[in-house]
């Protein structure tokens, strides 16, 4: 159950195949539990050149006025294999 407005999410991931630059590895979606409608999405951007886990900050904007029951969905862009270890919402 999330109130409307900015939501800070945390994705803990490692992308050993990624070269030095920043790259989008996937997308974090917030999906309405009742309607399956995607209400907010944002790119998951990782730093290349790191083999260990990184904590990636993702900011989403939940529309509307009242709190909404949402679930988290992760999709991948498929450019590199990566490892997802934890998700979190602040």
């Amino acid at each position, binding site marked *: *159950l*999330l*109130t409307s407005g900015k939501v800070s999410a*945390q994705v*803990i991931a*490692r992308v050993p195949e990624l070269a030095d630059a920043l790259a989008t*590895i*996937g997308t974090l979606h917030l*999906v309405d*539990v009742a309607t399956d409608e995607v209400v907010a999405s944002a790119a998951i951007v990782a730093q290349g050149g790191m083999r*260990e*886990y990184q904590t990636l900050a993702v900011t989403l904007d939940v529309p509307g006025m009242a*709190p909404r*029951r949402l*679930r*988290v*969905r*992760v*999709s*991948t*862009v*498929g*450019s*590199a*294999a*990566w*490892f*997802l*270890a*934890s*998700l*979190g*919402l*602040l």
Partner: protein
Amino acid sequence: VLLYQWYVNDIEVIADRPNETRIWHRWSGHERLRRTSFLYYFLDHRVNALLPAPDHSYVDYLLQDFHLGTAEWSEFERYFHAFAVRAAEVARRRVLLMYPQVPFRGEYPLRALHDLMKTIAAPHILTIPPAAWITSAGHIEADTAAPWSLALRVPREPTATCVENTRVLAHIRKGERAGDRART
């Protein structure tokens, strides 16, 4: 002001309590006598407390099944978070009263759970660990470097849904959660 009187069994949104059946509990008159005789009820309770637990104890069960990173704790945290959002809508000041589980000797055995409650009652990150995920692509595997020692190997091909935290409770009941599959 909103008061929430929390007792430890509130966390059992998924309950898989240890077997506490004693041999005399199988006697056909046990339940009737327990309801009608306070002496029998008292003796049953006292003898039960004095004897070693037939399975692992209730305290052991709480500590083993409900800690950070488990689907059980994650599910409770999700419920508590939703409750906290609703509570904030109706009351400017919220107070959480935590009752200890008694009796106990020495150091309080459920301090870790009470500490977790203090953490989630304050602004914190709502954690969704692999044990609470439903995966559609890739494989959950053991990874000692990961915070919960599990990680999803995300495939190299574009995938619309790799992970969701939906219908976790139903999948837990069916033994289909991601963490279980990785451990087996």
